[in-house]
Structure formats: structure tokens, C-alpha cells
């Protein structure tokens, strides 16, 4: 096994503070290296320091050894000549990384022309060959706006690799992807590894780290707290944080004991509902009876219509067929929804206190109910004076929960409520959500792309698509 790149004491700091503590590692041919950490842990900064892509105002230190040469990470621009030729840097969001007004083929071709100095028709053939091998030959003449997400991913991959580098650096390559697409990306990366290259992956995704194998380093608050062989680290975590992280993976959750109380009149009944979107049948003939306190999971790939089903049940969307019947005598305001992106679900410029006060005034609620609920949801009093964009995603989602609980809901549709949250926060949030729903006899329709999460939490599951 040969070392392709060696990093010594890579660190990031501003003039005032150390953001990433010095860390040394080496990339071996045919062996992936993964850095795993939460949002804000500093993992991306570390990768950017190595690549020479730190944002302005941040400084790097340390050395980079590659092919017998040593570069100073503290000198801006010194890594520039590695780009494309020695190190391929995969973009985070491929559909934004491709030039919107240039055909896919030309964006791959230019790597061959300007980095490997091929003649333009040779370069074109090389580009076509790459696209063909990646199974996106039909993308050739298309503009990025005409490509599906998966195709854009492959085109960007081909474009990044055209310079012929053996090292691939991928920062959050699976951000926002569903399982099927994530597996595709992993397969692309593993091709490089099998071909004798090396892949450095930066991610928050435990499953990605597990599937990549190779070496794994865990990052917490700017420090690597644990590293070693990926499978070993994940099987026998030494650091407390790693243990918590692994426990928070839905795969490892305790299955919640269920006392199915199918008693009670249904709060919602749907018969034969169906929906098409853009000429495509999302689902049809769905029958659903929802009783108080039930927890129902909905899974399926992205774009399959999971959210549409929930919106139809809430009456936010009209079904093409079938009908939805609510229980009589229950206020319409007791059917509520939690959103995927909590900041987008609050009035942007009002404080949380203001939003809650508005709700209390509208429904003439008792204000004294707020304090104990906040305590229950582990929300600190001082957060009330902030605006939605000034609290964390987890906190805001709990505020959203608080907001709907004030109306004593009988049915709550939670639309991917934790997909934007870190693992540990996700676990806390889902636990609270399920606990409170059970306790108050509120039926919960939980939509998630994560089948493990649904399996571990729900009484029964509907699968779409």
C-alpha cells in the first residue's frame, strides 16, 4: 500500500480563536478515509484547509506532503496546482456547481483539453467515453437545468475527475439525498478506491461512513476525538461522543413498546384517495383510518408523494380521487402539521414570544400552560425573545411542537420533521414527539425517508412509491 498524501498538523484559526485543532493523517491508495462530525464541528473547515479553499478571514497551518513534495498549508494558493491534476474536489451540490449555460459534455471536455492538453476532438471523445461509462451518455448536449439530480451528480463527478487526479475529496457528498441516490454516490466513490485511488469523505452521515469502510476519524468541536479502522470504531466506540452518536442512529434505536389502543372513535378516515402530479400517479386507492394516539409511519423515496398524502389528510391539498372524513364535533384547528424546515414555518421577522402571544390571543388560551410545556420540551425561557433564525433547528422544531400542542391536537402530520437535524438532536426530537403524542392521545402521521426511523417508532407503516 502506498501513501498518496500526507497531512501533518492541519489546523484552522482566526486571529482570535483556534477553530480546528492540529490533526495529522495520511491517505493510502485503495483505502477511503472518512471524517465524521456534526454541523459546526469543523470537519468541513479541516477539508477546506487541506484543499486551500478556506473562506476569507480564516487561516490554516500545517503541512501537506504529496509525491515527495511538501507544501505549507499556511501559504494561501500553494495547493492550487494540485487541483484537478492531483486532487479532485467534488462539489457539494452538483446541480449548482455546473455552469448553467454550458452543455454537460463541454464541462467535462475542458478538463481534458486544458489539464491534459488533449486536442479538442480527442478531448471530446474522452469526455463522451466518461459520460458513457457513468451511464449518462444522453446528458451530453443537455444543459444542467435539464438534468435530473442524479445525472447532474454524475456529470459533475466526470467533470471533476477529467484532470486525472488519484485523490478525490468529497465534502458532504450525500447531503439531501435519499437512500437510493446515496448508494449511487457511494458506488461512484468506491470505483475510485477500487481503481487504486483514494477518497477523503467529509460527512455527518453515519451510514455513509459505515459503507465507505477504510479509516474513520470522529470530529467534535474542532477536535478529532477518536480514529481508527471504520468498522472497528463503529463496533467498539471508545469515546463517549461516538457512543452517543451511534446510539442516536435510528438503526440502533430501541423499538418503542407499543400498547395499541385501537379503542376510541377514528379522528380521520380516508377512503380510496389517489393523487397524480405532473402526469405521474403518486398513489391511488389509499384507505386509512386513524385513531387517537396512533403513530403511523409513511416512507418512500423523495418525490414519491409522502408529503402530498399528509397534506391531503389535512385538507391542504385536494385528492384526485377518494375522500377524507374528519370526526364530527372536533375543531378544525386540532388537526396540525410540523414542517421539514422549521425556520420556514414561522413568521420570519417576529420573535417567538410574539408568535406565541398571537396564538394565545387568537384562541384565548391560558398563558400559564406555556411555561410547563417549555420545560417539558427543554426550551430555555430566554429563547423567547429571539427570532426564528436566531435559534437552532432542533430548538425551533420543539417550538413548533409547542405551538401546535397549545391547540390540543387530535391529529398531527409531521413532515420529515428531523431531516435537517443532526443525529443526536433527531433522536431527542423524535422521542419527545412520540412521547407527547402518546401521552395526549394525539394521532401522529410521521413521514420520513429513513425506513429505520419509521420502523422503530411507528405502530404501523405505509410505504409509497
Amino acid at each position: 500500500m502506498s501513501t498518496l498524501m500526507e497531512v501533518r498538523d492541519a489546523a484552522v484559526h482566526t486571529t482570535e480563536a483556534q477553530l480546528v485543532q492540529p490533526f495529522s493523517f495520511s491517505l493510502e491508495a485503495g483505502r477511503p478515509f472518512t471524517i465524521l462530525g456534526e454541523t459546526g464541528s469543523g470537519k468541513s473547515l479541516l477539508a477546506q484547509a487541506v484543499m486551500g479553499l478556506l473562506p476569507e478571514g480564516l487561516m490554516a497551518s500545517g503541512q501537506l506532503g504529496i509525491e515527495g513534495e511538501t507544501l505549507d498549508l499556511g501559504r494561501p494558493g500553494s495547493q492550487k496546482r494540485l487541483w484537478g491534476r492531483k486532487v479532485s474536489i467534488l462539489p457539494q451540490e452538483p446541480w449548482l456547481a455546473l455552469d448553467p449555460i454550458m452543455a454537460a459534455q463541454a464541462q467535462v471536455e475542458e478538463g481534458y483539453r486544458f489539464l491534459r492538453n488533449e486536442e479538442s476532438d480527442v478531448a471530446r471523445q474522452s469526455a463522451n467515453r466518461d459520460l458513457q461509462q457513468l451511464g449518462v451518455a444522453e446528458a451530453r448536449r443537455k444543459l444542467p437545468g435539464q438534468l435530473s439530480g442524479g445525472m447532474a451528480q454524475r456529470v459533475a463527478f466526470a467533470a471533476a475527475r477529467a484532470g486525472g487526479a488519484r485523490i478525490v475529496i468529497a465534502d458532504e457528498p450525500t447531503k439531501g439525498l435519499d437512500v437510493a441516490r446515496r448508494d449511487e454516490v457511494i458506488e461512484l466513490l468506491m470505483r475510485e478506491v477500487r481503481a487504486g485511488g483514494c477518497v477523503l469523505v467529509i460527512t455527518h452521515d453515519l451510514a455513509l461512513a459505515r459503507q465507505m469502510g477504510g479509516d474513520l476519524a470522529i470530529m467534535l468541536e474542532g477536535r478529532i476525538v477518536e480514529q481508527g479502522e471504520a468498522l472497528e470504531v463503529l463496533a467498539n466506540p471508545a469515546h463517549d461522543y461516538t457512543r452517543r452518536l451511534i446510539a442516536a442512529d435510528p438503526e440502533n434505536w430501541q423499538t418503542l413498546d407499543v400498547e395499541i389502543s385501537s379503542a376510541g372513535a377514528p379522528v380521520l378516515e380516508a377512503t380510496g384517495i389517489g393523487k397524480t402530479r405532473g402526469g405521474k400517479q403518486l398513489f391511488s386507492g389509499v384507505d386509512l383510518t386513524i385513531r387517537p394516539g396512533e403513530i403511523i409511519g409513511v416512507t418512500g423515496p423523495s418525490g414519491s408523494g409522502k408529503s402530498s398524502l399528509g397534506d391531503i389528510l389535512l385538507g391542504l391539498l385536494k385528492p384526485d380521487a377518494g375522500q377524507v372524513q374528519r370526526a364530527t364535533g372536533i375543531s378544525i384547528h386540532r388537526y396540525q402539521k410540523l414542517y421539514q424546515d422549521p425556520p420556514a414555518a414561522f413568521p420570519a421577522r417576529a420573535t417567538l414570544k410574539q408568535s406565541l402571544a398571537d396564538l394565545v390571543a387568537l384562541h384565548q388560551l391560558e398563558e400559564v400552560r406555556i411555561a410547563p410545556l417549555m420545560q417539558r420540551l427543554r426550551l430555555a425561557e430566554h429563547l423567547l425573545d429571539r427570532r426564528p433564525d436566531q435559534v437552532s433547528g432542533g430548538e425551533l422544531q420543539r417550538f413548533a411542537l409547542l405551538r401546535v400542542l397549545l391547540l390540543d391536537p387530535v391529529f398531527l402530520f409531521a413532515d420529515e420533521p428531523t431531516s435537517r437535524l443532526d443525529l443526536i438532536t433527531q433522536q431527542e426530537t423524535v422521542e419527545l414527539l412520540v412521547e407527547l403524542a402518546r401521552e395526549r392521545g394525539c394521532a401522529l402521521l410521521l413521514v420520513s425517508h429513513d425506513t429505520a426511523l419509521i420502523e422503530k417508532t411507528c405502530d404501523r407503516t405505509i410505504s409509497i412509491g
Partner: protein
Amino acid sequence: MSSLVFAQTPALRFSLRKSLGLFILAGLVVFAFLPLIIGGADPLKQSLRHSLQPPSSAAWFGYDHLGRSMAARLAAALRLSLGLALLSVVTAMVPGILLGVLAAWRGGFIDRAIGAVSESLLALPGLLLVLMLTAIVPDNPAMLYLGISLVLWIEYFRVTRALARPILNSPAVEASRLLGFGPVYILKRHVWPEISAILLRLGAFGAASAIMAIAALGFVSVGVRPPTPELGLMMIELLPYYEEAPHALLQPIAVIFLMVLALQLLAGRQNSGKETA
């Protein structure tokens, strides 16, 4: 209750540019309206022995070719420009915003209908429209006001509609509706704070273009007619005397420059025509 919320809108946190703009504008307003309070020379009174007299300690701004007090004339011209611009902006703003919200809210036919009206008014360049309206009833500032407002409301309408549409379709509004809030609340808490944040910007740009248009029409002698003091008109009147009395010609130029500059500083940086495109 609402003051608590608005106190935090970023529009009210003034940058250095904005403070400078506000400062200049305040200075011009004081200069324009102080004579009304403490009294001053008559802008129309001629006295040929003062003709083209340079600034002195007695008359800081000197006199024009007919011996009229430049200070009085500038102040009167400023009052006309600022007043007409402000009036036009307010007249354009109210229906522009209301129609914009209405179009975004109702969509469909109403949206298309108002859109079509605005498009057809835009078919002709703004100044041409104003020019033709002033030709219908000459010597009447009301036509000037009507024409400018007719051109300005479109910008408010388009910006408001573009801004309100995504807000009204956002999860935040959906959530508020589910929680039982009505249209008034949604306008007050969701739509208005976003619009009010750019109101100043739009208003300042609108006022600047109104002032430019008034002066341009005065300059080509089809807007306000003499002897009414108007900045563009004053320039064309004083142009022949630029050699004997450059100070006189420079004064209305400086005033209009300061006024438009102040408004541009207040408005902040223009956004690459994204709102106009």
C-alpha cells in the same frame, strides 16, 4: 404590540451610507421649508440692480439674471420638486402595494388583468408618457403628477407581487392558516414586515426618478412654465450667463445632484435589475 416587532427590522438599522443620505436630505428639507416659517425673499420679485450679483454676506446665494434672490428661488424649486416627488411616490405606493398583494393572493384572472394593465403602461417609456400627458393640458403640474404616479406605481406593483407570492405560498403562511389565523394576520405578520423592509429603498428610487423627470421636462421647457422656479428650468435660463455668473448656474445643478445623491444613498445599492427584469 406591533412596535415591539418593527423595532427589530433591519431597515431601521442605518448604515453610514444611509445616515449620510438622510443627513443631506434633511439639510435640503430645512433649506427648502425654513423660508416658509421664518420668512424670506419673494422668489418672483425682480430687481435688476441685483442682476447676476455673486454671493455676498447679505445674500449667500446671490441673484439671477433678473435680480431675483437665488436662495428664495432654490428653496421654492426644492419645495416643488420634493413635494411633487413625495406626492407621486405616495400616490403610486398605496395602489401599487395593494394591487401587488391582491395579485399575488388571488392569482389567476385578477393577477393577469392587473399585470396586463401594468405591461401596457410600460410599453411606452415612462418619460414619453409623462411628456404626452403634459401636452394634453399644458402648464398644469397636476398632469405632471398624474403622469409620474402612473409610471411609478408599476414598480411597486411588480416588486410587491414578486415578494408576496413566495411568502403567501410558504410553509409559514400555511402553518398560520392551520393554526386558525386569518388574512389580516397573514398580511400583518408575514407579508407586511417583508415589504416594509424594502419600502424605503423603493420610495427613494421612485422619488429620485420623479425628481429627474420633473427637471428634465423643465429643462426642455415643456414641464413647469416660467416664472415658476423649477430646477431644470432655472438651469436653462441661467445657461446663457454661465461666464459672467457661473455660481448661478452651478447652484441648481448642485441642488439636484445633492437631492438625487441623498435619495440614492438612502436607497442603498441597486440590485442588478433583478427586480426590474
